[in-house]
């Protein structure tokens, strides 16, 4: 059972504090903050103990969400509960940040009051909670040029407005009573996280994809929704793969509310989404990549003068020509003691900088169209360079985002709400692939 729950900002300000059992002193917040800031990077911070009080915490959105307990509970329960608390806060306040928590603290107290009683978790489902939550969320709307750009010339609707802006889903679920009342939207997101390790000659050493289908529902009440996935979807490694264009995943897992009656034959998920965000399906694929890896790197490293290393990188994006990778960043470790760097990049929107603290250089490419090839030359000055120092260059790691793209090829064929649904509702399907870890040796 949970003794206390508190939320701290990264600077240690108390944002939320609720004591459920009165068995631990209020001072424990400060004790926790001292302990967590005193830890060195390699000590596991998740569970910490002070006298007979255990602190379990998660970090999200720059906040510490902490539960303290005097018993020895299941760590999974507490961690998942804290994750759920973070997700609900995000649902109700639009986003999870120090600012949103500060502005909505009354709402979060209300949530906590219903979620936990005397240290025992009561309920965390949005369907139940929405009956009890009375406070309206407060959001700050920063002025943004982006809003203006959506209005076309002479106020006409342009092609652009067919695409939901990326911030559209980050608003509180409850605000629909207010001025935004007309927006009955459902977002279905297919999100994949890719982790790849490539050998020096482009050999794939490890490839994992973790994917999930997430629904974010703003409808106050929603009848059954049918989500059709690719008909040719193989689950499990054992099945024979012919030359068909079948999509394969190793295993998948569903939210307990998903009705799988039609899944085996038609690959249709039936679900009654409740308000807020929920993960309907999780799947993963290990050790193989159905598409070519999105990036190939051709590096060459040589010693120039006495104290200079030349790093020449050629990076090719193997996505289909229509797609684009965004926010590509490449991190290359450089020899210890590197002091300065000069670079030759192929276009002005790219940037590169040397980070002596991390012993690395960072090359950033905001947009990278499919099929393109970019190259860059870095000259790094390293006083006291030895031939052994060249071995310190590498492995290269990359991070990027592939919008409108799934690596497994999993697609949503259709999204149908049952006909009884009243009121106009907008349905959005979005795909994105994030790099979890992309390393090239």
């Amino acid at each position, binding site marked *: *059972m949970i003794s206390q729950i508190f939320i701290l900002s990264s600077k240690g*300000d*108390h*944002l*939320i*504090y609720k*004591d459920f*059992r*009165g068995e631990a002193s209020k001072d424990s917040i400060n004790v926790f903050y001292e302990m967590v800031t005193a830890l060195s990077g*390699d*000590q*596991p*911070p*998740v*569970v910490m*103990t002070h006298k007979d009080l*255990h602190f379990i*915490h*998660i*970090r999200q959105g720059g906040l510490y969400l902490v539960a303290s307990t005097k018993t*020895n*509970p*299941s*760590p*999974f*329960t507490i961690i*998942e*509960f804290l*994750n759920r608390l973070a997700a609900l806060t995000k649902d109700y306040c639009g986003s999870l940040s120090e600012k949103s928590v500060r502005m909505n603290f*009354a709402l979060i*107290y209300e949530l906590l*009051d219903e979620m936990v*009683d*005397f240290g*025992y978790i*009561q*309920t965390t*489902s949005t369907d139940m909670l929405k009956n009890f939550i*009375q406070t309206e969320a407060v959001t700050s709307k920063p002025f943004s040029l982006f809003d203006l750009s959506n209005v076309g010339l002479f106020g006409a609707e342009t092609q652009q407005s067919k695409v939901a802006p990326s911030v559209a889903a980050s608003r509180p679920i409850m605000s629909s009573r207010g001025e935004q009342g007309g927006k009955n939207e459902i977002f279905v997101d297919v999100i994949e*996280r890719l982790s790849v*390790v490539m050998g020096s000659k482009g050999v794939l*050493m*490890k490839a*994992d994809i973790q994917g999930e289908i997430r629904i974010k529902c703003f409808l106050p009440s929603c009848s059954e929704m049918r989500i059709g996935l690719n008909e040719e979807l193989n689950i499990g490694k054992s099945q024979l793969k012919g030359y068909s264009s079948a999509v394969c995943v190793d295993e998948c*897992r569903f939210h*307990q509310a998903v009705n799988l009656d039609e899944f085996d034959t038609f690959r249709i998920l039936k679900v009654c989404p409740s308000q807020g965000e929920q993960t309907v399906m*999780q799947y*993963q694929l*290990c*050790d193989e990549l159905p598409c070519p890896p999105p990036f190939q790197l051709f590096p060459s490293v040589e010693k120039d003068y006495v104290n200079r290393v030349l790093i020449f990188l050629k990076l090719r994006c193997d996505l289909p020509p229509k797609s684009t990778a965004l926010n590509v960043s490449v991190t290359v*470790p450089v020899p*210890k003691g590197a002091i300065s760097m000069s670079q030759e990049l192929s276009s002005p929107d790219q940037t590169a900088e040397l980070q002596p603290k991390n012993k690395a250089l960072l090359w950033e490419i905001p947009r990278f169209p499919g099929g393109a090839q970019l190259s860059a030359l870095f000259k790094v000055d390293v006083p006291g360079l030895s031939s*052994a120092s060249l*071995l310190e260059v590498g492995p290269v*790691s990359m*991070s990027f985002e592939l919008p409108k793209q799934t690596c497994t090829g999993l697609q949503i064929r259709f999204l149908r709400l049952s006909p009884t649904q009243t009121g106009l509702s907008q349905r959005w399907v979005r795909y994105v692939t994030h790099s*979890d*870890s992309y*390393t090239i*040796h």
Partner: protein
Amino acid sequence: MPYFGSEETVKELKRALSNPNVQADRLRYKNYITRVIRYMTQGLDVSSLFMDMVKASATVDIVQKKLVYLYMCTYASDKPDLALLAINTLRKDCADPNPMVRGLALRNMCNFRMPGISEYIEQPIVAGLRDKASYVRRVAVMGCAKMQSLQPNIEIDPSIVNELYALLRDPDPVVVVNCLRALEEILKDEGGVVINKPIAHHLLNRMKDLDSWGQSEVLTFLLRYRPRSDDELFDILSLLDAFLQSAHAHVAVATLRLFLHLAATHPAVQADALQHTSSPLLTMCGSISRELRFAGLCHVQQVMRSQPGLFAPHYKRFFCAYSEPSYIKFRKMEILVELVNDENVTLVLEELRSYCTDVSPELAQVAIAAIGRIARTYSEKCLNILTGLLALKQEHITSAVIQTFRDLVWFCPQSTAAVCQTVEACVDCTQDSEAKQALLWLLGEHGERISSAPYVLEVYIDGLKTELSSSVKMELLTAAVKMFLCRPAETQDMLGRLLHHCIEEESDMCVRDRALLYHRLLQRGVEQTRKVVMGPKSDPSMSVLTGHQQEPVSQWVSNFNTLGPLSAQDLCFQTPLIALPEQPSNNAEEELLPVSKDVSPFIPTDDQEELNLYLGPPLSHEAFERTWLDLEVQHRETLSYTRPRITPDALQAALQLAKIQTLAFTPGDTLPWKAYLYTRGNRTLILAELLWEDPDIEGSLVVTVKQQPPNQHALRGFVSTLSSVLQTLDIDS
């Protein structure tokens, strides 16, 4: 944190809250109340506003009510007399037609932590238990537990207990789970809620209606239930089978724990359950939430203690992502070391090799140590990698490699030749004292195989004045003496200089003493010195050859799905193979002591020789039983202690410290409680039984001792050791 000028702020709030103009304006009033709560959260003492807040509780606005209740619950214990004023409003709300208002009022009234509240809340709670709204029943059930905790010494009301047991059949799932929780708290002194067969099966049948939190909680309560027959057991297991694959990590893990617990006598079923849960566990290890990932990894480590092969095919899942924090990377490396096999060793080593050049020196060192541990099985491949790393000439890498070499030579002597060849290369760039010690140990121990060894030592001896670390100096002394024994001609002169410096000029007492010891030892002659100084050159227990022991599931299952595996202290329990054998270098003193006792003729072997208990080779259960039955009782005594009230693991560890091995004991609180122990001492084997039958009589622990061959002196020593251990435990608990 208290704010500067906080008194002013409180005064201002007080003025505003009592201002009739503000009270009339609903929005402004609520705004001020919100500010009070905000200051309360920040740690400001706003308890002096209690009166004004009580007034604010009489409102129809539910949000305002909730805020005021939150305030009142926080300060009720400081201002009990004022809080009583609010009780009336709350009791009135408990009869409100709106179930939400009823529940809210009841819950908050029960949350007032002040003496004397129970007489006011008892009646609303009892009414709440029979409320037709499930929301109110949930609150009322928890209220029973709160009432009990407010006055822990008062007699338990049997009618409430009965009512709660009856409510286990409530149609609302949350009420059912809350009943379990409340009963558990109320009946804490009697061992918690009773799970008999009808209740267990009722709960099992309700599992599907519960939400995931309820499921994992009920699964934990079911740990207490023992099925009567195998048929019943398998019925239960098949009912729960689906939950092993639950999408919620906490449910899957709780189910696994229950499986392992119920099927304790069916190892095949346990293995099957572990196999089934491996995929949810792996999913947790790749979860977005890094905290969940960490918890998953820690539990994978637990499972691997019994089934090291289970995760071997999935080794790639434990490769580190570069964005992960180091505490996760460390765990992953520990797992990688454990699951290496012939198929994956090449790729695992390649992966670990790439971590060795990581930006973080700690990470690099851990990776090198991990390769060193794999080297105990796959020496050649690993030695190539380690030697390659030396070429980088990075200080922290070289340091870690040398330390790894030292451990490797100690654990697997067959790699000595290869290590001796490469060790000369890293002599120049050893800077930190840990690395120096390791290098000196290698030089001293295997000086005859390293041709340049004396010259390296000479460099160190010449630089002695600038050396700061005393442990390096002590290691240098030991190395020089050992070197002198195998290569006297080259070393004699420098050893003389070293001893002279350490005895005459050294200010550190430990170093001086060590030097004096060697000086006197050498005076007694080379042979004597050799006997004392030359210990075993490799791990005498040959832990590498005996291989990794697969532990039975029962070793760790009691800890499974608790905080235990996640906290740092547990780490040393998990890697006993690495932690247990003494590190060769740092314990020169200990190397000396046992041998010197045998050699030195000065200590007369007394008739009343001292009793040294030792464990010796482990005794199997069968062997113990046979010997026990064969032997006569040598001694029986009733000790004035109760049964140690600590966990079995702690008892075992405590006895082990006194060199007494625990063979078996009755689990939990079952009576009669028994424990079987054995130990060896003065050439005799001692077997003992601890028996504790009657909990009512204080100090009725009966110890029965059998011995082979009989030795009264050893027996007396054993009983006194045992009683001192029990005494310590008695005080501790």
